[in-house]
Structures are given as structure tokens and as C-alpha cells.
């Protein structure tokens, strides 16, 4: 098979898989939201309305139809570009989500930009051939990945803004303002997201790096006196590329969706913070929209990584 044909085949498989995952994920998100105890009718009336009023309200909001019908209606309207209106504030979901999406996208980008070099450095350290030092770095990576995000945030706030007073303790964005104008507000949440992610990815890739180090051509290069960056960039890293691309994709998607904790703790008005508020208010369309966006980011990220890895592997197979 030619390189182009195998690439097209791999691309087709990746796209089909991503589409199927997106459909399943949207159904799962919708089902999870519907399974929440109490609904928007309860929230709107503050729990004081009579059963009759509630039933009427449910009918106007379309909450009385069976689950699969509501899911079908919801997905068709979304595919038509209409994300619905918030059940609580009655504003269009798009207006609520768009600025939050931008804020979270910027935060995620900065966090990933910090995490990737950190993870690579950690992977190289944990995958070294000196067994004692390798064990130490691998333990460091495991410990780093195991620390709960809340603890990371707390420690960073105490050190960076409490003891050192370098940064504001909260990352409150100005109303309607974008995070691009206030880089100082991004530092705390980005670090809090990047450090555990880097530890996780670094520990994971350490194994791949160790495998690459023990490859015969790397041992031969060492015996010929090739060392340092020359050895790492030319003989070791090309063989870690494929797992690294996948790890970066998972880290990116994970950061985008797990930002909720960090955003809530630091008051950063991103998508995650919106999700937490919307769940508290049983604002189904908003929860579903945010949940779906998060899930789609994960699906798209993994698909991109699969494609990139397929390119690398096809190039290797057709060497």
C-alpha cells in the first residue's frame, strides 16, 4: 500500500471514530444532566410553586417529553446553530458561553505551553540510564501527579501571593474584559493546571524515553561518543514522538475540562466556573452546552493526536 493510501485510510478511521464518540458523548452528557435531582422548573419558582404551576412550566419549557425526544430536539437545534436559552436567566446560551470559552481557551493554551516543556524535561530525567536518578525522578513525577489540584492551588496562593506578594490571590477578570489584557491574572491558574499535568505526562513518557534509550542504535551512538543534546534530539526523541503527541493531546483536553476546580477556587470566570454555577442552578441547556463543548474538545484533541501519530507512523512504515 502506498504512503498516501495508508494515510487516507488511517485518517478515515480516525474521523469515523471521532464522530461516533461525539454522538455517544452528547447522549451521555444529556442523560447525566437530566438525571440531576430537581429541574429548572423547581429552580425558577424557588420551590414554592404548586404542583399545577410546575406542570404548566414544565410543559412550556418542554421538560415533560421523554428523554430521547428531548435529546433529539436538543441535538437538531444545536446542529442548526441554536444552542437554546438559559432556563434561569433566559439569555441565549451562546452569549453566556462565548466569553467564558475565550477565557478558558487562553488559560488552557498558557497552561499547556507551560506543561509540555516541563513534561518533556521530566520524561528525559525519568527515562535516563542512571537507575538511581531515574527512580528518583519517576517517584517525583508520581507524587506530583497524585497531589490534588485543590492543594496545588492552595500552596501556590499561599506562596506566590501570600508570602511573596507577587500576584493577586484571586484571578477576577474585569467585567467583559479578556484575560489577554491582564497576564498577571493568568499566572496562578495556569501554574495550578500545568504542574500536575506536567507531572502526569512526564511520568508516563519516562517509560517511552527509557525504551528509546535502550534501543541498539542509541547504545551504538553512545559508544561512538555521541552524547548530550545531539544524542537526545537526533536518536532518542524521534522515537518518543508518537506517544508524546498523544500525551500532549490528553493533557490539553484534560486541562480544558478539568479547569473547573481551579477556576472556581480562584474566581476566574471561565467555562468551568460557568459549569459549576449552571449545575447549581439546574440550568440544563447551559450545563449540556458546556459539557458538550468540553467533551468535543477532548474528542477533537484525541482525533488530532491520532492523525499526527498516524502521519509519524506511516512515515516510519514507508521509510
Amino acid at each position, binding site marked *: 500500500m502506498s504512503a498516501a493510501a495508508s494515510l487516507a485510510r488511517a485518517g478515515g478511521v480516525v474521523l469515523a471514530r471521532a464522530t461516533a464518540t461525539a454522538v455517544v458523548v452528547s447522549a451521555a452528557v444529556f442523560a447525566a444532566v437530566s438525571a440531576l435531582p430537581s429541574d429548572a422548573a423547581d429552580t425558577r419558582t424557588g420551590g414554592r410553586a404548586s404542583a399545577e404551576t410546575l406542570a404548566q412550566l414544565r410543559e412550556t419549557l418542554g421538560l415533560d417529553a421523554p428523554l430521547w425526544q428531548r435529546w433529539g430536539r436538543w441535538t437538531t437545534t444545536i446542529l442548526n446553530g441554536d444552542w437554546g436559552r438559559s432556563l434561569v436567566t433566559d439569555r441565549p446560551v451562546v452569549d453566556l458561553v462565548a466569553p467564558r470559552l475565550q477565557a478558558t481557551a487562553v488559560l488552557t493554551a498558557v497552561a499547556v505551553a507551560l506543561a509540555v516543556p516541563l513534561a518533556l524535561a521530566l520524561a528525559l530525567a525519568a527515562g535516563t540510564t542512571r537507575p538511581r536518578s531515574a527512580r528518583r525522578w519517576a517517584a517525583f513525577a508520581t507524587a506530583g501527579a497524585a497531589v490534588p489540584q485543590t492543594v496545588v492551588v492552595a500552596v501556590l496562593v499561599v506562596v506566590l501571593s501570600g508570602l511573596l506578594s507577587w500576584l493577586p490571590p484571586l484571578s477576577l477578570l474585569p467585567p467583559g474584559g479578556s484575560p489577554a489584557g491582564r497576564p498577571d491574572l493568568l499566572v496562578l491558574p495556569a501554574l495550578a493546571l500545568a504542574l500536575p499535568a506536567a507531572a502526569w505526562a512526564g511520568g508516563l513518557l519516562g517509560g517511552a524515553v527509557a525504551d528509546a534509550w535502550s534501543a541498539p542504535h542509541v547504545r551504538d551512538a553512545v559508544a561512538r561518543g555521541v552524547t548530550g543534546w545531539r544524542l537526545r534530539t537526533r536518536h532518542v526523541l524521534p522515537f518518543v514522538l508518537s506517544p508524546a503527541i498523544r500525551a500532549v493531546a490528553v493533557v490539553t483536553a484534560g486541562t480544558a475540562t478539568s479547569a473547573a476546580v481551579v477556576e472556581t477556587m480562584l474566581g476566574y470566570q471561565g467555562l468551568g466556573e460557568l459549569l459549576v454555577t449552571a449545575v447549581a442552578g439546574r440550568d440544563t441547556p447551559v450545563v449540556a452546552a458546556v459539557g458538550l463543548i468540553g467533551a468535543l474538545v477532548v474528542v477533537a484533541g484525541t482525533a488530532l493526536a491520532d492523525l499526527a501519530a498516524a502521519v509519524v507512523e506511516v512515515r516510519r512504515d514507508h*521509510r
Partner: protein
Amino acid sequence: MTDLTVRGLIVHDGRGRAVLSGIDLDVPAHSVVAVTGPSGSGKSTVLKAVLDVLPPGLRRTGGEVRWAGAPVAPGRAAVRWRRRCTGLLAQDPVSTLNPLWTVERLLSEVEGGADAARLHALDLDPAEVLQRRPHQLSGGQAQRVALARATAGDPALLLLDEPTSSLDADTTRLVADLVRRRREEGLGATLLISHDHEFVSALADHVVDLGSTGSGFTPPAAPPPEDDVVLHVDALGIAHPVPLLHDATFEVRRGELVVVVGPSGSGKTTLLRALAGLHEQYTGLVEVGGTALAPLPRRSREHLRAVQYLPQDPFAALNPAHRATSAVARAARVLLGLSRDRATSAALELLAAVRLDAATGHRRPRQLSGGQRQRVVLARALVAEPRLLLADEPTSALDDRTAEAVLGVLADHRARGLAVLAATHDPRLVRCADRVLRWRHDALSDETTRHPTRGGTTR
């Protein structure tokens, strides 16, 4: 002067056993020194200890390496010395070349490496090989590419580990010329590891022997083959990746040893891989025991057992996590359905027959020498009691005594009906053969040696 002096070199393994005890070595400038010894005697370990690149598990516990009078300290100083003053050709050249790189890039990693004259001197056509990647080279071509890289820049010390293991007589002569020229033109010293007595005695000024059991090879006797055809190949053609073979028809009978010889790069490995089911693009008919041989994924369990393949690079064919004995025992359990105990005793028995003791069987591939790995792979193939053995260079890394033992084991199995088709450059294996198929351009022609009445039926 740029002399290498080694005094009292001691290497211990992880359990505190001495692998090398007190090796002395003198390589004066512009001389050729050879290290010989039986398979597993530590020839490659000497070279690795001198270079300070011992694999994990081995430690240099004593001794001194001096270069041009000054000691070479292990660590950074040794790295600098390796980069500036040495050129290395390691064992198993196919896997030591970076698999993603073209030959051109591989050679230009060393200054002056991609020099056309240097390739021509080793009978490599730059136009043909420069754009290929290691997996597109034959074993012999890869060895010569690695040699061209090792000699680029004319290093003051050239270290060659089995430089001719995949080469035929003509190319071996080219390598000998190259080493001789280094000495005559005063380009530098050469430290050579080889089990090939002829090659060593023709070249070396001085030989360091790590306990040889004597040279001289006596081919073990095997009964004449029976008339029963095991492998029948009819009009076999291989045109991919490049035209290699056209319309080959031959048979291998029960108990027969047929060797395929031909220049390096002619396609011997591809032929064996095609029969083993690892290279699917061929035309023609291949039958084993009267039934057509299907491609590997659709091959019946009986055929999987009956046809065993011995690859050229045994290191790549062994799972690095499995100990030698379990690798062999596993084949017996999977292919013959033996119980764990019976499989282990069958494995130990076969390993002993190819002169590997139980302690060696306990090691993992990385801790075995090149010749030991070659014998583990052979034992793994034979334990399945195949009808046909496809062997690619089964004796290339073996000294005379060990090669005798290995060929003796093959003779025993042939007496019980095993048919062997082997690709080789090794004259010792050719001497044992019932028939020789010689590769000329893209055709195989039969050269009958031992049993003229039984050969000759194929063209």
C-alpha cells in the same frame, strides 16, 4: 605516539562474578591487534570495557586504559576520547543504524562520512544505497555502511566487532584491504574482534586469545537425505521492493541441508522471509509436505510449527524481557502443547546440545553474547520439532568449536528427517551442505556438492 595500553582490566556482573579477569592489551600505533576466543568468552565485553560503554549490569572494577600515554578516565573524558579518536563497528550492524535515517544521513553524522570513494572501496554503489534506509539494506550492506561510517575521518583507533560476519569472501577481502591500507599509510591502529581464524591470521600483527579451544573445523557427518520432498518451490518470483528473483524452482528433501549462497544484497534474506511468510509480495507456488503454504496470518497451526525461521539478527528476534530458557520453553509449550515442566526440560536439553549451560539460559538477551543469542534462536526453532528450518546465517558469529556443535545438532535433527534451507556466507556451513544453490543475477542455479546422484534435478 597514539598507542592504546590496557592493564589488568577486570569486569564483574551484577552478582559479583568476574566476566573478565585481568586482561592486558597493547595496540601500538599503526598496528592491527585481534582478540579471538570462543563464543561467549567476553570478546565484545573487552571492547565495551575499553570504550567505557558496558551495558547495565556489568561494571569495570579494576584496570586502566591509557591512550597515547595518558590514562582515559571513565565518564566524560572517555566520551571525548571516543568521539575524537575512535571509530566503532559494533556487532549486529542492522539494528545499530538509526532506522529512520537514510544511508546518506547516517554517514554524514561523522565528518567526511558520505565520501563516494570510501563507499566504492567497500563495493557499495552510492547512487544505489545513499537514499535507502537500514531496513532496505541487506545484512552485508548494512555492515559495510556501518564500516564506512566507522572509518570516516580515519580515526586514530578503529574498533571492529566481527566486521565480516555477514560478508562473502569477496567483500571480506575488501575489508581486509581497508584494514591493511590503514596500517601501510599510517592512518591509525586497529583493534579487531573475530572468530574467523583465516581473516585474523592474514591481518593481525598480534593476537590476544581469550581461551580458544583450538581451531580447525571438522564438518559433522549426517546421513544422506531421503527422497521425500518437504519443501517444493515452483516458479518463485520476487519483484518487490526491487527485482530480486525470477522463476526459481527447487526442492528440499527430508534430512537434506541446502544452502543458498550469493553476493551480499542479492536477496537471500528476502527469499527466506518470503518462505517464512514474512514477505508477502511474491509469485509462484510454495508447498510444504504437499500442501500450499499460506501467508502467515492464515497459516495453519501445523504449518506454523512445521516451518521455523531463524532470522539474521537474533537480537531483534528475542523478547528482551524473556530469559533464554523460557524463550525456548515457550515455543515448546505453544507449538507442541507440552506442560511447563516438560517444555523446560526440553529447552534445557536443546540449549545444552548447542553448548549453553543452565546459568547462561537464565540470562536475558541483553546479557548474552552475539553467538549465544544465535544459538538461543536456533534452539527455539528446533524445540518445535519442525519439518523445515529456514536459517539465515545460523553460524556467522560462532567460533569453529561452537559451529561444529551447532552443525552437529542440525545433523542429529536431519537424521530424524529435518530439512534445512540456509542462506550463508560461511564456508564451514557450505562444506556440510548436500546441495548449494548459487544466486546469479536474478536466478538460482544448482551446484551439487556431496550427493551428485541426488542433486541436479532442479533448475
